[in-house]
């Protein structure tokens, strides 16, 4: 894998785009017109080659007002997406305001779907503020969570799947990331990775 990772930008060329990548790119293209977003959790290692499936793409967005959300809702509906939650547009916005997550998918499908929430804590704020722009084949871009936070957060979540994700990201990025920053997040989340080969 050849890519450049400089500060908050990753540039990758010659990546063959999967159907999942295409789904994510299409959705984020719409979402980005209405709010700032960052993709976190499982899709991040999958984007960089981890061989596992996922049902959902986890996305944190900046707070938006109700009118903007209604516009986003209409734009998604116009592009053949629907919200899986039974609430109407007002109810969906209330859910976001209450710190809950809402899910959107293509009409007549369940998988894959995008799970959206408003940012709600310091880690979310950091993820959004320090999001990494990934330039793909000089054509499209996605915003992903910073790897230095993603690895400790996955270790914190702690399931076997999450630990495998953290291990994979470490193996791919260990020569390119800010190890001190990684250590600081590991300390804040009180996690270690030596037992899995994450030697920092």
């Amino acid at each position, binding site marked *: *894998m*050849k*890519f450049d990772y400089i500060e908050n930008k990753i540039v*990758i*060329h*010659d*990546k*063959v*785009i*999967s*159907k*999942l*990548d295409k789904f994510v790119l299409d959705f984020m293209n719409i979402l980005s017109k209405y709010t700032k977003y960052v993709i976190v959790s499982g899709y991040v290692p*999958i984007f*960089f*080659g*981890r*061989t596992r*499936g996922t049902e959902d793409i986890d996305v944190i967005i900046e707070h938006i007002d109700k009118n903007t959300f209604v516009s986003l809702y209409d734009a998604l509906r116009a592009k053949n997406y629907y919200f*899986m*939650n*039974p609430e109407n547009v007002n109810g969906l916005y209330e859910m976001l305001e209450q710190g809950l997550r809402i*899910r959107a*998918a293509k009409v*007549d*499908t*369940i*998988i*894959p779907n995008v799970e959206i929430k408003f940012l709600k804590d310091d880690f979310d704020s950091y993820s959004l503020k320090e999001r990494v722009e990934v330039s793909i084949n000089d054509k499209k871009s996605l915003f992903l969570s910073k790897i230095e936070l993603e690895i400790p957060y996955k270790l*914190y*979540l*702690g*399931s*076997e799947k999450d*630990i*495998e994700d953290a*291990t*994979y990201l470490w*193996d*791919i990025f260990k020569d390119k990331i800010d190890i001190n920053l990684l250590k600081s997040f590991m300390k804040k989340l009180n996690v270690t990775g030596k037992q*899995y*080969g994450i030697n920092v």
Partner: protein
Amino acid sequence: MELMFDRKKNFEERLWFIHHYANWVKKAPNKVWSKQHADFIDSLMLNAPDYGLSSEEYLSIKDTVKNIRMAKTK
């Protein structure tokens, strides 16, 4: 009959494979690893339209899983 399944060993073997696979990905040209990866992901996506649950059933399961997970991380 008692089922013999060593979960710890199984996890260690999966971690070994992840290290092994990541090392291959790091060395392989982007066109090569990402083509194989896209073929794999696309094959999983083929089954997506046949998902047997309604959105209500799916959301209910996700809520249950989330609650279990939150209880474990507390």
